[in-house]
């Protein structure tokens, strides 16, 4: 009799222990769900857009004459000080030593290092793919700047403390003139086609080297231009940042890396 009660007690205890362990495991699993890798991934990934638009740009290096108008137009519409450049034009060389001009806006990467590293989600993906910044949230740690593989892609206002366009100390960068795109769409315009809805650097370019539009729309100017181009490239593609700015490399017969091909 005494033995059986003891056994019962043991059984009960073991059952209770089992329940406890089960509860602990459940609790621990629940906890891990709070910080699961998936939830970490979601923040790094893009939010899908209902409209399916993905803004992109194509820059024909053959047409660029290095006039810097894109830089100045950008400074004008974005209210930038003289020494603040969202867009940079540099003279570069091909392997055969031909000089060409490389103009560089923000690449609006689909896998943007700056978005991955921002500690406060101040840099984020808009549903239409533009990598934009929340200037009210930025703490100015400059990790995004360090992370960007495209050099001066983002610039805090070193040297322009008297102009408080954006709060002093934050990092800022090119955003494909998202204000023009948004306002243009409100008026029923098409970014890339209508001047008022297109980034200022594209509108101002005197040689039409820059083309803008929705990469997901085959009829958009940027998609057509990509279709027509023999070859396009993106900067530092080996880093898998998936930029949305495409370039047509120098391919003219006289200059460029393919000069001399087909001759002899």
């Amino acid at each position: 009799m005494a033995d059986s009660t003891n056994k019962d007690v043991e059984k009960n205890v073991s059952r209770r222990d089992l329940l406890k362990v089960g509860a602990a495991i459940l609790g621990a699993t629940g906890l891990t769900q709070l910080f699961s890798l998936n939830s970490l991934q979601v923040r790094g990934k893009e939010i899908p857009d209902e409209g399916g638009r993905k803004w992109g740009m194509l820059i024909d290096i053959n047409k660029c004459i290095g006039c810097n108008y894109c830089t100045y137009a950008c400074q004008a519409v974005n209210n930038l000080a003289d020494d603040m450049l969202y867009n940079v034009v540099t003279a570069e060389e091909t392997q055969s030593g031909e000089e060409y001009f490389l103009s560089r806006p923000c690449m609006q990467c689909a896998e943007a290092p700056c978005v991955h590293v921002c500690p406060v989600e101040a840099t984020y993906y808009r549903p239409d793919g533009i990598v934009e910044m929340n200037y009210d949230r930025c703490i100015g740690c400059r990790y995004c700047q360090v992370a960007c593989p495209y050099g001066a892609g983002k610039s805090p206002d070193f040297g322009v403390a008297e102009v408080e366009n954006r709060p002093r100390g934050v990092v800022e960068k090119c955003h494909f003139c998202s204000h023009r795109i948004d306002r243009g769409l409100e008026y029923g315009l098409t970014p890339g086609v209508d001047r008022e809805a297109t980034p200022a650097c594209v509108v101002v370019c005197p040689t039409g080297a820059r083309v803008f539009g929705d990469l997901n729309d085959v009829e958009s100017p940027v998609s057509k231009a990509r279709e027509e181009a023999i070859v396009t490239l993106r900067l530092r593609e080996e880093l898998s940042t998936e930029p949305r700015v495409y370039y047509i490399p120098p391919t003219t017969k006289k200059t460029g890396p393919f000069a001399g091909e087909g001759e002899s």
Partner: protein
Amino acid sequence: MLPDIHCPTIKLGKRSIVVFPYWIGLLILGLLFGLVGAFIVLRDGLHVTGLSNAIPWGLWISIDLSAIAMGGSAFVFGVIVYILRIKRFEAIGKLAVLLGFLGYSTAGMVLLFDLGRPLRFWHPVVYWQPHSLLWEVTMCVVLYLSVLMAELLPIVLEHPLFKTHPWLTRYKALGSLMERAHSFAHSLHKAGPVLAVAGLTLSLLHQASLGATYSVLAGRGIWFNQSAPVQFVFSAMSGGIALLFITSVFVFRVMRPGTVSDSAIYDVARLTGKITLLLTYLRVWDWAVTNYYSFDREVFLQTQILDTIAPYSLTFWLGQALLPVIAGSVLLAAKSIKNFRYLMLAAVIPILAAIITRWNYNFAGLIASISYDPFTPGIILNSYTPTWVEFSVGTLVICYWLLAFSLAARYLPFSSGHDHH
């Protein structure tokens, strides 16, 4: 009971002078100089610094990383004292907690000036982006500082000032406040093991994440290194415990003779010796993996260009390989050497090595950065010279560290054994 505290003296002719007040005066002068720079940077913003878009992380970040490394002994000795319960290290463990707190608070202070928007320092706590290593580092530093404060409070409250001061009986409110503080401190002390585990986790997590902060950035050549997190953890342990050894000799052997046995202090030296040798082994393998067994064009070019402007490779071979091996071996043989002067001299090297590692890591990827030019990519050489404001703020935080340490060394009771249990 306070143990007798002997202040170091200097003999000038027949007079012997107590250095302490002059030393404190000097540090206060340094603090005042630092406050000028601090005021200027808070008023005018970061453009008073030598930082630029090409080199956005400079002197302050290097100080920040080094200060955190200097607190690296706290989590090791938290485990030794609270979990392994090795009694003879109890007093040294208290000193380690102090060093941890000083290192982390110094880092937090210098970061405050380094932020473009200092008043938004709390944003990471509210706006979470767990994908970011800097977010993780911030959260760990905030939480670990709380743990360190919880570990430090009982040590500070042991001072007789908070137990037997006449005001405590004269003013009832003050007395009951102190009583509450003591019972709170007692419960904190009881929670020691929990705090030690929390401290170990947080500290390991973010010492590693500090390395990962750099090493996840694929576009920066030298920075993109899988072993950086491990190196950061071990170099923080080696440098932090070496500093603990030097300060232990000072605080216990010079100022409080008899509180800690010499053999316990020798054991601290041997521990840092072991970790230094292990770290150097890892460092040399890491060098071999990145430079000998594999070839990365960018790393090769960066190293080459850095060697032309600075003794970059030399700082590795001499400062992080050869000297640490010698110093580690000397420290490991502490019990047969039995000479505190030589051992302290040797212990300086792991500290310098930890600082050099962080300094080089921060600047290598920024000074020699990789261009985005698609056809003939090369290395862009950037330059950075800190302005006097940066040195001034650097002086501020270093003087804060030294001042807080000196006052603690002079006034805190580090006696082992507690009355209340």
